[in-house]
């Protein structure tokens, strides 16, 4: 009984306080590949870790007209990009978007993304609300920010 009560209070607190919930979600290693040609879709990658189960509902950035969450479906040897509406975030699990797999496709880029620059990107979560991160633009051959730091 007591446990249930505590659980209810905790849930109520989490729901009522977006600030508290926000702390339970971490978005890190956000980066994008520098544009090779103008007016081509770009790709951004990041890692999300949420303490509680949550869902990424959408992503926006001032540099692109639209951001789409893409998963890559492997059908034998053929890779098909699959547009997914929302990204499920299981509690306590790291979800990594990385080259050759899941990525955020940046459609209608206003500018060519140049290596060394950054741009803001806002992620909307079902429970955690909105979180804005700075995305680092890395070289076209980059595999991720950790490798770049080495």
């Amino acid at each position, binding site marked *: 009984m007591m446990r249930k009560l505590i659980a209810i209070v905790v849930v109520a607190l989490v729901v009522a306080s977006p600030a508290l919930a926000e702390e339970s979600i971490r978005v890190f290693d956000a980066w994008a590949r520098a544009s*090779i040609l103008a007016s*081509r879709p770009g790709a951004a990658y990041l890692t999300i870790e949420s303490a509680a189960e949550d869902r990424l509902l959408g992503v926006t950035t001032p540099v692109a007209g639209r951001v789409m969450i893409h998963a890559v479906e492997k059908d034998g*040897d*053929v890779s098909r990009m699959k*547009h997914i509406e929302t990204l499920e975030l299981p509690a306590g699990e790291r979800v990594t978007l990385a080259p*050759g797999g899941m990525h955020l496709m940046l459609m209608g880029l206003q500018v060519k993304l140049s290596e060394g620059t950054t741009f803001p990107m806002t992620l909307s979560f079902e429970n955690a609300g909105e979180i804005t991160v700075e995305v680092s633009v890395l070289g076209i051959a980059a*595999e991720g920010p950790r490798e770049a730091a080495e």
Partner: protein
Amino acid sequence: MTSTKTTQLRRIRFSLWILVAAAVLTLCGVYFVRTIGVREPSPPVTVGEAAIRTAFSLIDHNGNRVTGADFLGRWQFVFFGFTHCPDVCPTTLAYMANVLDRLGGEIERVAPIFITVDPSRDTPQVMAEYVQAFHPKLIGLTGTEAEVAAAARSFRVYYEKMEEETAPDGYLMAHAGHIYVMTPEGGFEDVFREGDQSAEEMATDVLASMSGKQ
């Protein structure tokens, strides 16, 4: 006499109808492909029993007509993709460039080739700018839709146009993300996929193949 004439008229009428039907079908086809892309994924390209060969006639990024024979005598790394591809193609081409940089002097015995599966947008000029961003040795090839389809068949590469209303021009291409390693004779040696092994490992494997066959 009259009956012969009637038969002839009938034949002419029949031929005319066939012409009309052919014209309508062609126009529909062109309209379909140009404006809305192919709605249903096309069935996989069947390639029969033919061996994978470096066989094609395409236009390189300098605007010159080239055939598979032009690359014989060197090992060929062949990858099919397209320049509007946001993830797999740049990732794979950057990986291929990384492998090339690990070949040392042996790079002179390799022709790295990127063939577009989206030739209507990837003109030689576009290809030139694109390939130079990855590696000075990288050769970009394009051609007509039919020439590209024939090249893909000779490598048994599958690709398809996927409708995606939010993508530029309303479509994306789905394609196999393999790098084919072909012998100086134009025969199949090996196939690699970025992500399956490090660039160092692929370079080591390729160098081993190259030292085995001078």
